[in-house]
């Protein structure tokens, strides 16, 4: 072959490249694909994040100079009882929000998948809340929660003779009351993802199960859910990040008394927002951001590990 002219030409043309092993070639392609995105993420995300981390060790009110403060921001933070309240609130949002919305959205997606008549319309009905303005919806829900004779929910309760409930004006009820519209708005998103996942399961599995006479319940547990694993992982991780980062819904529903009443609904991102854009205490806000980031990272890593394919 060495005397073959075409072979030597090919060799000369792609010399460096063709000498690499298949794996090495593939790795080169991989890095080639990743080159531009990595630059993007480094410049647009990592650099500002690093900036924020450094800022957490400083004091800055946006208008003046930055001064070094060492770990003061963190010390203040951990000694602040409001922070611990906020910390607790944030986890309650997660621990209530993720499982509830996961289960509800799966049930909806599962049954919707089996419906033919007006399927598209019904699917649109469930998705529309996800598309609407958070500000507008917060206002509407606030009105739903008002007392008799104005609030829709309390009026319903009254027709059944049940005493009215203080939804937003109560330190115990406020958080779940705000969580409800957040779950409501996010259902559409999860339903769509579940549907995409469900439709990705080849019908052959179901056909085989039918032939074997397997019950619907078993099909669900032994076939559907295991095959939905990547989808479930995705939704759980993303949903968790979403609830730990909840902000818009709380902010819009408690705009006059943010995070109230008495900090019972305040999540960490709202605390960050207030510290940064109300008090203009940027260093302190950055410290809170670092804490949030750490929490999110740890929770996500745990979830990814636990839900990983064996």
């Amino acid at each position, binding site marked *: 072959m060495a005397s073959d002219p075409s072979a030597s030409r090919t060799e000369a043309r792609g010399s460096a490249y063709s000498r690499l092993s298949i794996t090495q070639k593939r790795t080169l392609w991989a890095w080639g694909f990743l080159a531009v995105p990595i630059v993007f993420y480094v410049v647009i995300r990592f650099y500002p994040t690093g900036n924020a981390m450094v800022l957490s060790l400083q004091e800055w*009110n*946006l*208008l*003046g100079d930055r001064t070094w403060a060492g770990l003061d921001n963190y010390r203040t933070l951990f000694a602040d009882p409001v922070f611990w309240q906020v910390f607790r609130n944030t986890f309650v949002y997660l621990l209530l929000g993720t499982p509830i919305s996961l289960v509800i959205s799966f049930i909806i997606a599962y049954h919707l998948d089996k419906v033919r008549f007006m399927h598209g319309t019904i699917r649109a009905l469930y998705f529309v809340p996800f598309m609407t303005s958070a500000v507008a919806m917060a206002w509407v829900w*606030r*009105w739903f929660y*008002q*007392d*008799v*004779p*104005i609030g829709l929910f309390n009026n319903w309760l*009254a027709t059944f003779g049940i005493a*009215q409930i203080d939804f*937003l*004006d*109560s*330190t115990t009820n406020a958080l779940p009351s705000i969580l409800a519209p957040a779950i409501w708005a996010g259902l559409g998103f999860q339903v769509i993802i579940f549907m995409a996942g469900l439709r990705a399961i080849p019908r052959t599995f179901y056909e085989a199960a039918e032939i074997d006479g397997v019950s619907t319940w078993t099909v669900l547990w032994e076939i559907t859910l295991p095959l939905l694993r990547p989808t479930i992982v995705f939704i759980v991780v993303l949903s968790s990040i979403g609830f730990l980062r909840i902000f818009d819904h709380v902010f819009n529903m408690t705009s*006059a*008394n*943010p995070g*109230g*009443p*008495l900090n019972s609904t305040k999540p960490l991102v709202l605390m960050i927002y*207030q510290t940064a*854009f*109300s*008090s*203009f205490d940027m260093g302190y806000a950055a410290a809170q951001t670092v804490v949030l980031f750490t929490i999110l990272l740890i929770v996500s890593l745990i979830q990814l590990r636990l839900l990983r394919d064996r």
Partner: protein
Amino acid sequence: MNRPFRTALAALATSAAALTSASAQEVTIEYWQYFFEARVDAMEILIENFEAANPNINVEMTHFPYADYRTRTAVAVPAGEGPDSVQLFYGWLNDYIEAGLIQPLPTDTFSPAMVEAEFFPMVRAMERDGAYYALPTAVRSLALFYNQRLLDAAGVEVPTTLEELVAAAAATTERDGAGNITQVGLTTGMTAQDHHWFREVLIRQFGGEPYLDDYQTVNYDTDAGRAALGFYLGLEEAGVSQSGFMDEPQAAFRGNRAAFHIDGSFRIGALNDSRGLEWGVTELPAGADGTQSNYSSYWVNAITSSAEGPEYEASVLFMEYLTSPEAMQIWLDVVGELPARQSVGMTEENANDDVFGPFIRGLAYAQTTKFADESAQRQVLVDMIERVQLQDMDPGESLRMAAEAEQAILDGYYNN
């Protein structure tokens, strides 16, 4: 004079003329304010008038949505993207001065003596070390709105004292069969204007002084403070009010479900839009011993430190015009905000106007709180009420906690 000297003099004169005409060249200055249709309209009129009187100066106005206006300016100005002249909320003055963003107004044009004599007293809060850093075109104050129809239906007169107010509110509160309030006598809500009413009006009317040391020390953990709090909480206990009724106090009033409502002059526009609402306004009720007080807030105009040379000169002239009686009258007519000068406010026409009169008369005895962090300090009072109403805390105890919390905010601010 001999010839060479005259030539030299002529040359000097010519060059001097050249210099002055150079400073009379086209200058463009930039002005920022937040977007609100009426304010933008008014400002456009003022700019037109100013440019007509000063043909060599061109003013460019940029406006932003109100949401995050403060962040917008706070981010842009230090980055050098800011304007020559800017409108800011009076409460931000300290931050802007400390950061070196605005420069003091020249004392020859804006002497403290002149301001003190001609502007309403509460504008004095804008002075630092013998110079004024910013001045308002217009100010706002509080007054008592009332629903004429509801008052007529209950047969009550417009109250002038706190006692009369409580009685009138009692007469106009209505409930349904189950005891729920369907119409409230007086709206209350610390999240709205009530925290100003409490601070600057009620506390004083019960014999106290809310702050000392030029607003650096909290002083309402006193008998007067407790009495004021007792009065405020008593409104709900007496059943003439309900905090949170119809979500916001102004919603209840606009929905014809409240007889009395304390609010600022900025509410007038919205009320005018409410068809079917017959409303009137009167001065805030006086205390038992006749003490009257009011709270005034305002947006001020200032010159940024990036304005220099011809832009600075032009900005000074612009500031002069913005704070002139003519500008204030235009602003009153177009925006509905009260003039900052006494001469404009206290004209026969303005001071006795059905709508603006009570607000303007209130300016004569109004105070302006120097906030370190307005939203945080407001939150302190909101929490104070909620601790009592939602957690059954003793009012005196809650007041003490509030005073402590607010003092911490002030200390954190002033001791840095």
